[in-house]
């Protein structure tokens, strides 16, 4: 049991890491030939870091756009972030102090995730504009994430997994020491769903996570008059060949 799951998790982690890396390399190496920040935009590098920070932490643009989508989206992401931090307790020995401190609040964050996801899903059904733009995969993605959060919460409330054993298993993943894992259907579902999520991450809209950092409309400094910006492929067309006009 533990061995099979370990194998699946290794494969998915490798696909996830390599797939994501390939995408990030692609984004980083594709030139942005023109300055296209959505203005007003910061005029300094540190201003851009601040702008991106507000997008990542507060979803600033989404807040301007739609308060409901913002609320549900933010609840889900903030809950997910908190839950992920709490999961560090399965991977650290001894458990880091602050992780131990926040861990008891994990279920509330899990409920935040579910509430957010349910809100986002209901928008896909209820708002005619959002329904129109939703593909089957857009519904499935939300249901899928709800299943991950739900299975996690189920183990907290009722269908308990053997936590000590789970932790041995998780730590074993790092030392290639494959521990025994008793068969717990909820845990298996939880882990398999996470594995599938990691697999599809580099090939799906989940790429919005790295994408934001490479979005020229958000990450460019507004200084085109002060600094000449020119892409590699545009250099052959450089304008200085009109010097015959210099009078």
């Amino acid at each position, binding site marked *: 049991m533990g061995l099979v799951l370990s194998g699946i998790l290794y494969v998915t982690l490798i696909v996830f890491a390599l797939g994501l890396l390939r995408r990030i390399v692609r984004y980083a190496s594709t030139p942005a030939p023109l300055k296209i920040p959505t203005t*007003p935009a910061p005029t300094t590098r540190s201003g851009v870091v601040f702008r991106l920070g507000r*997008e990542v932490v507060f979803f600033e643009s989404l807040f301007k756009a739609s308060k409901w989508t913002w609320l549900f989206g933010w609840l889900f992401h903030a809950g997910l972030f908190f839950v992920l931090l709490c999961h560090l307790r399965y991977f650290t020995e001894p458990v880091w102090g602050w992780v131990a401190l926040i861990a008891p609040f994990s279920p509330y964050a899990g409920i935040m995730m579910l509430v957010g996801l349910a809100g986002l899903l209901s928008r896909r059904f209820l*708002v005619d504009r*959002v329904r129109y*733009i939703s593909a089957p*995969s857009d519904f499935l993605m939300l249901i899928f994430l709800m299943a991950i959060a739900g299975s996690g919460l189920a183990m907290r409330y009722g269908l308990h997994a053997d936590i000590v054993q789970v932790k041995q298993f998780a730590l074993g993943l790092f030392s290639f020491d494959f521990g025994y894992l008793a068969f717990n259907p909820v845990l298996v579902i939880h882990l398999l769903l996470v594995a599938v999520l990691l697999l599809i991450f580099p090939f799906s*809209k989940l790429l919005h996570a790295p994408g934001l950092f490479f979005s020229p409309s*958000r990450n460019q400094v507004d200084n085109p008059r002060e600094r000449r*910006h020119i892409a590699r492929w545009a250099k052959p067309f450089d304008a200085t060949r009109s010097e015959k006009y210099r009078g």
Partner: protein
Amino acid sequence: MAKPPEFDIPEAGDYIFTPPVMPDAMSHSQPYVAKDVHQEAIGFPGELIDNWQQVAVDKLGELTKKYRGLQVYLDSCVKCGACTDKCHYFLGTGDPKNMPVARQDLLRKVYRRYYTLPGKYFPKLVGAEDLTEEVLDDWYKYYHQCSQCRRCSVYCPYGIDTAEVSMAAREIMDTVGKGQKYCNEIIGKVHKIGNNLGLPEPALADTLEGLEEDVLEDDGVPVKFPLNVKGADILLVTPSADFFAEPHIDGLIGYAKVFHQAGLSWTVSSHASEAANFGLFIGSYENMQKVAVRIREAALELGVKRIVFGECGHAWRVGYSFLNTLAGPFDFLDPNYPVPQHIVEVTHDLMQQGRIKLDPEANDDKRVTFHDSCNVARASRMGSKAGGQFTLPREIIKASCNHFYDMRADTIGEATFCCGGGGGLLTDDLIELRTKGALPRMQALKELNDQHQITHMAAICAICKSQFAKVLPYYGFEMDQIISVHQLVGDALVMDTEH
């Protein structure tokens, strides 16, 4: 007034209303397709080529490798819906393909089909589709219902800019021989004659001379309108509409008066007698650069020290954001001034230095509001601080007239609504789209008008001015209620006859 159009003009209500989704409400709207002469003049095939599917798919792949924005935007959309009620064409028509995300999806579904794993193996699941004739038709219709105003990009949590997607789609269509007549014919004229109107040098000289006579007659001041003057300090690059169209021409008179009063030497160039650069609209770097380089050539030829742009929205985007890239470096110009400068920046500086004086009482008969033009608002800047593109024009308007009122906050500044005619759509074959797309701006104007009896809306964009002159009457306003910012400045400017 023009003859009544053959479609229902929406009524401007009390507030901006998000319509229900009405599929295919605008599926009949498309501009004239470019003829072979227009296509070939700017380097594209004359008609739809035989293997267009393959060429289009390849071009899409090429563009994702050339433009990081396009690549990231095609990958990153999560279909959250934040943009769905932000486009003026959706608000005015209810056609769901005018929702920014749906417009992007027309290209994205093809990208997914040919360039992503899930799209190759599970197309139905992720909404991927083959590039068929129907899809190409949709591209042609709906990428010509986008004015590339970037309003959606303000609200997208990832900054996805539909303008970039629509430019890429238009470039792909040009590449396979299905271009838009309006834009491509105009770009050809700029390459050949120097401006969008095809106004040759003698006609331009005549026009400018006529303006000198008009101003002398009206104001008794010998304001000059110089053409091709070598050794002038400032090269003025302005939209050619400024030379003959109303209300644009009053703006040009305003710039000339400012230069005259401040004692600045300036000239227009017949070689670069056009600020507009429609190469932007069709997403063609090569064409955009070719048009932009004329400005460098004119500056070198005339030996000027500064370049100043007149009132033109997308031209200011190309000028401010791209000119240095496309036609720089401008190391041969006076380093004390940014290259290029906007006429609003010039006037604002002169005002602050006390080198010109404005008497707002001259415009006491007017109650004015200001329309932020999309390319100025969301794709450029004025002055040294972020947001100067909003404050500088308002400061000079307020210095020029005593009665200024802003429209609702969510319809100005970075949230401004497009006039409905930007992005290469200012053509009569799209008049229904233009009229309906103006609805959100007209609603905001009506709301303000109900409170403050607005007499004039000022703008700093040639396209906005032409568009509003056309569509204002459909909404119960007069066509001459749209004016140039520099008309206000010109009228308020205290002139002395000493010079």
